[in-house]
């Protein structure tokens, strides 16, 4: 069924057009065009914005900002974003990485949305344009309400650059390599003060309807050095608070069984 395509130069106008519940924002197309191809009749309007700010990368300082329209291929081309090359490369094949965007990934359902798991571990802030102007939302709050975001347009996502290469870790478990939907995805940000972890963040994908933080594992890491007993305690707590589902890639039971194993490997630096 034909849909109306509306393209705006202003993000304000694009956000206003999204207040229509049958409107969807088109970024790279990997979610919205797929829905249209599958005959999703809930979409009657496709909204686009041509504002150049949405494709901007600012990685020069200690705080990094990625425009919502930045593709994964562009992240892979940025030397300053080397710590995000793993998450970006784990998504799709080259064509999907040329199309898929950081902003769209925030809305990708299980078993996708791997980049968002990395963003959650980095405590990212999501900048959105709404009917009442621009505002910033913590990514965790954003994810909890992402299906009720009518009338808002994601503009950018920002986060502090990890203090060292070792402070940020990422692991995606997939049956098909190098490309495949996730069985589970894990990311951890472990800032260290002296030898102790301060502000631990552990994020999990495919362990709930949206990426979630593994708070019990974070508590097991907080204030401790990353030794064997700390890693074992975090791994044992990884499954707490999760609610994975069954799909063609894995059962909920299997996901619960392996999440601690892979968190242990992630924290131990094992391949």
């Amino acid at each position, binding site marked *: 069924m034909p849909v109306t395509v509306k393209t705006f130069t202003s993000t304000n106008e694009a956000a206003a057009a999204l207040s229509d519940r049958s409107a969807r924002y088109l970024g790279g197309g*990997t979610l919205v*065009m797929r829905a249209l191809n599958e005959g999703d009749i809930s979409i009657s309007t496709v909204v686009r914005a041509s504002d150049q700010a949405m494709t901007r990368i600012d990685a020069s300082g200690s705080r990094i900002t990625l425009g919502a329209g930045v593709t994964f291929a562009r992240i892979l081309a940025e030397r300053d974003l080397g710590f995000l090359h793993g998450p970006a490369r784990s998504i799709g094949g080259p064509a999907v990485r*040329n199309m898929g965007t950081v902003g769209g990934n925030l809305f990708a359902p299980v078993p996708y949305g791997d980049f968002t798991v990395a963003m959650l571990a980095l405590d990212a802030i999501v900048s959105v344009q709404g009917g009442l102007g621009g505002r910033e939302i913590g990514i965790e709050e954003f994810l909890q309400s992402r299906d009720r975001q009518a009338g808002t347009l994601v503009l950018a996502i920002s986060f502090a650059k990890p203090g060292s290469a070792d402070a940020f870790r990422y692991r995606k478990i997939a049956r098909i390599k190098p490309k495949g939907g996730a069985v589970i995805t894990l990311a951890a940000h472990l800032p260290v003060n002296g030898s102790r972890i301060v502000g631990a963040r552990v994020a999990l994908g495919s362990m709930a309807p949206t990426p979630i933080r593994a708070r019990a594992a974070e508590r097991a890491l907080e204030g401790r050095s990353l030794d064997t007993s700390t890693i074992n305690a975090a791994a044992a707590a990884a499954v707490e608070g999760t609610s994975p589902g069954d799909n063609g890639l894995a059962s909920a039971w299997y996901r619960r069984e392996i999440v601690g194993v892979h968190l242990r490997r992630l924290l131990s630096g094992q391949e």
Partner: protein
Amino acid sequence: MTKTPLQFQHNGRDVAIFVDGGTNLLVALRELIGDMTPKFGCGQGGCGTCSVLIDGELHLSCLTLAETVAGRSVETLDGIKDGPNLHPLQRAFADNFAAQCGYCTPGMLMAAKALLDRNPQPSRAEVVEAISGNICRCTGYEPIINAVLAAASGGRARA
């Protein structure tokens, strides 16, 4: 619903068509321009047989809103041969038995072309990565990988 005029370059030739809102590029190419080389596979971005180059970059035409290619260059398998002469990749696919049912072949060739255009001497691992978004259910991939390596810079590919 009104149709939208759309102009772009298709294999180096200017084309102008009218598309319905929401039409994907694959439908525009096949049904409005008559280029049947990109195939419809999954419609979800999972199989890669609809792959085309947009401004030299590999894209999935089934997930591309046709209107977004206005003023841009779209290259399909139909445009890679030189008159009656096959492209070196096509010749290598034929010589290395890299096509069986042939349904994935257009996408495989465009993914391989995207790789060789920027990296004429890829390693085997780079070839595997380049075609990782394209599914083949016949060959087991090995003949395809061998064909791309054979086509690369006259067969002087790195190990």
